[in-house]
């Protein structure tokens, strides 16, 4: 949480006043938040055809995260020099910290094979000057401050699709509850406009935040990673106590789809699955979704100047999700599907 504290995130987004239902009703439109993508035609994040709003910032550090750009709660530079750099050198000219490192491409066949670039993330202050001048799109900014009004404008564009298919808006991330004011305002505005709402959460959020948004949420996509608190803390950085408490709290109060990312070597063994099943068996939820592991986010790690925490060759055995499904069913969780 120190990174968040440094950004002044806490101060600006204090949880105070959230429980008040009336809030600043007329003011929801102008509430701002940090968003890194708005994806229309999402068909895996809740029922029907949906628009998923990805909020930036997450308290967890799951090594398998497929959206690494979602983790930090501030805008970042995404660098795809390898494919797109034209070697024009403009980014070097404008960078005030000289954070863009240029190395000669070492090619035996030609004298001048051009240059390779990378960003020294320790020096980079994220002033985004390089992004502004880059002509090829090799540098781009991930994370934009958007108002609820702007986002709802985009969400409304697909209203007819939601109405026909039973879809709506899904807030995902990152962790949407890490921006409680913004999330609340988005949800409240969506409900005011009669749009179905879903929140995709890690469950790691203060109780009062959950309480605050609950009246405006039609469906919670609740991620469960592991039943064991120690393993959970060691792997993703936070305890799972709060998460399971929150799940219990939500149980029976709203519709819930529990989502379990099936991570090889972490939670895909019989013991891991049974432990999760045992924890949730008595709770009230609609269904459990198994999300098979994929490493499609690995390219984005490189673009962010990070290394992929899991080894590249970690691949889930194709039979594994089915096995997990069988195990869940055997452990008493009947409504269990694999989302592909």
């Amino acid at each position, binding site marked *: 949480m120190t990174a968040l504290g440094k950004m002044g995130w806490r101060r600006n987004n204090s949880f105070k006043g959230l429980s008040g239902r009336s809030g600043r009703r007329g003011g929801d439109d102008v509430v701002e938040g940090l968003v*890194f*993508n708005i*994806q*229309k*035609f*999402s*068909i*895996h*994040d809740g029922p*029907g*055809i949906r628009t*998923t709003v*990805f909020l930036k910032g997450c308290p967890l550090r799951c090594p398998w995260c*497929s*959206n690494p750009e979602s983790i930090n709660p501030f805008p970042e530079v995404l660098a*795809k020099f390898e*494919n797109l750099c*034209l070697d*024009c050198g403009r980014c070097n000219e404008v960078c005030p910290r000289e954070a863009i490192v240029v190395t000669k491409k070492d090619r035996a066949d030609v004298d001048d094979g051009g240059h390779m670039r990378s960003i020294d993330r320790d020096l980079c202050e994220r002033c985004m000057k390089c992004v502004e001048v880059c*002509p*090829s*799109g090799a540098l781009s900014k991930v994370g934009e401050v958007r108002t609820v009004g702007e986002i709802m404008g985009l969400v409304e*564009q*697909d209203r*007819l*699709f939601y*109405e*026909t*298919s*039973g879809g709506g808006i899904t807030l*995902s991330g990152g962790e949407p509850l890490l921006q409680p004011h913004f999330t609340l305002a988005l949800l409240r505005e969506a409900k005011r406009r009669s749009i179905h709402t879903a929140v*995709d959460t890690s469950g790691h959020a203060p109780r009062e935040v959950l309480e605050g948004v609950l009246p405006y949420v039609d469906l919670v*996509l609740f991620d469960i990673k592991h039943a064991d608190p120690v393993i959970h803390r060691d792997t993703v950085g936070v305890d799972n106590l709060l998460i399971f408490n929150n799940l219990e709290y939500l149980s029976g109060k709203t519709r819930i789809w529990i*989502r379990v990312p099936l991570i090889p070597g972490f939670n895909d063994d019989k013991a891991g699955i049974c432990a999760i099943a045992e924890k949730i068996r008595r709770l009230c939820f609609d269904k459990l*979704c198994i*999300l098979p592991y*994929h*490493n*499609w*986010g*690995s*390219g*984005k790690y*490189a*673009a962010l100047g990070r290394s992929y925490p899991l080894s*590249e060759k970690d691949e889930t055995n194709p039979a594994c999700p089915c096995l997990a499904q069988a195990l869940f069913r055997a452990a008493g969780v009947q409504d269990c599907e694999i*989302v*592909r």
Partner: protein
Amino acid sequence: MGVAVKQLNASRITKAVQIKDAERPSVSMPVEVKLDPNVRICTERAELVTESYRMTEGEPWVIRRAKALDHLLRNMTIYILEGEQIVGNYASTPDSLPTYPEISCRWLDEELEGAFRENIDEAGRARLREIHSFWYERNVEGRILATLPDDLRVFIEKSKSTAMFTIFWPLGCFTLDLRHWVFPRGLRGIVEEIGRLRGELRADDPEYGEKKDFYDAAEICCEAAIAFARRYAELARKKAASARGKVREDCLRVAEVCSRVPENPPRTFHEALQAVFFCHLISAQIDWYSVGLGQRLDQLLWPYYEADKEAGNIDYDRAVELLEFLWIKLDDLGQINPVTTSIYQAGGTKFQNISIGGVDEHGNDASNELSLAVLDATIDVRTPQPSICLLFHEKMDPRLLDKAIECIATGQGQPAIFNNDVCVKWHLDKALEILYPESGVHIGVPCLGLVQKADRVVRRMIARLPRRVRQRIELSIDEWPNAVYTGGGAVGDALRKVAKKTGFWDAEKGMAIARGWAPTACVGGGLQGRVTIQGTLTSILIFTVLDFVKCFEYVMYQGVEPETGELVGAPTPDPRTFKTYEEFLEAFMRQIEFQVDRANRAYQVAEKIYEEQMPRPFASACTETCVRRGRDGMRKGDASISEIFSMGSVNAAECLAAVKRLVFEEKSVTMDELIAACAANWEGYEDLHRKCLEVPKFGNDDDYVDGILAEFYRKAQAVVHSHRDHWGNGLQLESSLAAGYYVGGLVCGATPDGRVKGETVSDGQLSPMHGRDVKGPTAVLKSCSKVDPHKTWNQLCNQKINPAFLKGENRKLFADYLRTWLKFGNWHVQFNCQSAEELRDAVAHPERHKDLIVRVAGYSAYFIDLAPGLQQDIIARTEQDLSEFASRA
């Protein structure tokens, strides 16, 4: 699939033309087009037709035409392949295609030693050359070239470098009135009807001679068609004699069917199918170089199927099997084209459309079990032809939609989906030609059938009107429905009164007719054997494509072709002097006007020659209105719409958007810079290129550019419509061009939408430019919905979908997606499955595939952003999905 179908399907020879590098965008090398070397050119038709024409010199054209068909049908080689249950052949061998020297032959003659050398032997080439020497000056092509004024001839010869591609290509799609006219009485009944009408002709009729010739010709053709079918019956009987067991039974059944139809009304499903094929084969193929079929097969065949089923003679599987036999026959038809035409015609397909779904004349769902059977047959045999069109509407049986999605999932791009409600409305408008003055220009009459009957009554009523009014009304009626009267004032009031009293203006009837619409050739709509639309009762000889991107380029270069320095467009003022966007738009419209005007003048010359020299007595005999009028369908009489195809509209709109935003609104770029950058193909102007690419693009639900497209489309349509064809009808802008778009790109330099020189233009008139729609498929549909189809007609949107979207649970979502599309009121959408090849291309050329989104739960990424190894994974997955669908089918 039965054994016989399987065998026939396996030995099918694809007649499609191979187009090299056709689908690759950004390729600037010439496109090479070649007929498959296995396809032979058959000279039999050319020989027989020429023989007949040589004997009939001096007779009326309509008779000569009928006699040529008669000679052909009685003497051409016929065959029945082993196992065939729907019979009829078109050339002397299954692997060959005939030629049509009476229409055009120069392109073939020139290429006999070139592109077509491998397709014909030396003796055949000599025969053709001899035949061509007879036709060179005499055929339609020769006559047109001799008649065209010099300035137009130059225009046609330079067609490749101008905005118009003008090609000799008779489209001429008739929609035969099988349901209401041919099937109830059979050709024998039509002959009797013709005899009766001929007997009633009065010598004082000013058209007496013409009508009599037409009736004679129609009779010759009907008799020839009956004799043709009997030849097959004979052949089948012969085959039966030397066979035994099931083969013998099948042959005998074929013999029985062929001796019965098309002479008599069909009694069984099998007979009805065979009758459909005979009529189509003769009218659209043997007689003419035509495309199109345009039948609503499920509706047409339902009574026969139902009766057969009730009697226990047929079950669903047998119906599917018979349809499969027909599909294989239809796919057997092909066409040898001039090389350039092949590109537009998507490799020489004959656009034989079969429609399913839709509504009946009362507006109720017309889909039935046969609609499903049509799709099942398509899924089974996977022939590229016929093309299946689903007339989709709210009331349609959900099972049919589900089956359609199953068919789309096989990756054939079938069926094409049409928004029935929108199309019916459009056809109603055209059928009625709107009677009241405030809403339109025309006074017309909705129901053709009623016109003739009411004629006498009308004249009696009109006789009582003041003379001035009377004369104008009489003129209108004589000329109806082509030179129709502009309503208003006393004349308009009187006419409306007459119309209402006589039932001329019968909105209900008009609606019933409009509901019977079906896509004919390509995807243009037509009304079954009635007032017909897309060239349905006429030919489009000079097939014209208006390239909007080229028109835009001519605005930049003031009408000068940048490659050659020649003035080939309108000499509009220097765009650098323009103060407002409106000035620019006006200059753009002037370029369009200039091109349309030239095309239309050429068109008129050509159409007149066609009308005179190429009547179609057989097709006319199969159309009630022609028989009742005593006029050939090619002659003025039945309404039809002459069209001008367009391409590059999306790119042109994006060009306009770039100019509007950068030059006139932001003023961050001068016109001079923009022109210089385009002329330099962006070299040295990378920043400006980026700026241009950042201007909103079509397909992202962005009102700015979508609005520009809608506005420019409206204006372009008005320009096109203000030109009249040789019958006095306004030309119609047709936006369904689905092939050949890359040729349009090849001849254009860089343009302000960010295209580089030679890069292709968008692949449908409402399809976003490849890689520029980055907001997903819903945004594309939204963008399309902003262009009013009622004005602009028939725009095509192609969408690529990931096969995973058609799997399992997702199929329901896809159905919802389609239902939402229905609500937007778009005209037409076509889906192709994303292929593994496309994804591989994305790996190699990420800049062209920015739109490929990877959809997984809680995940956000574009395909091109994935690490290389992962891209390969997804490619493998796509391949697997596709093969799963394939194996299931």
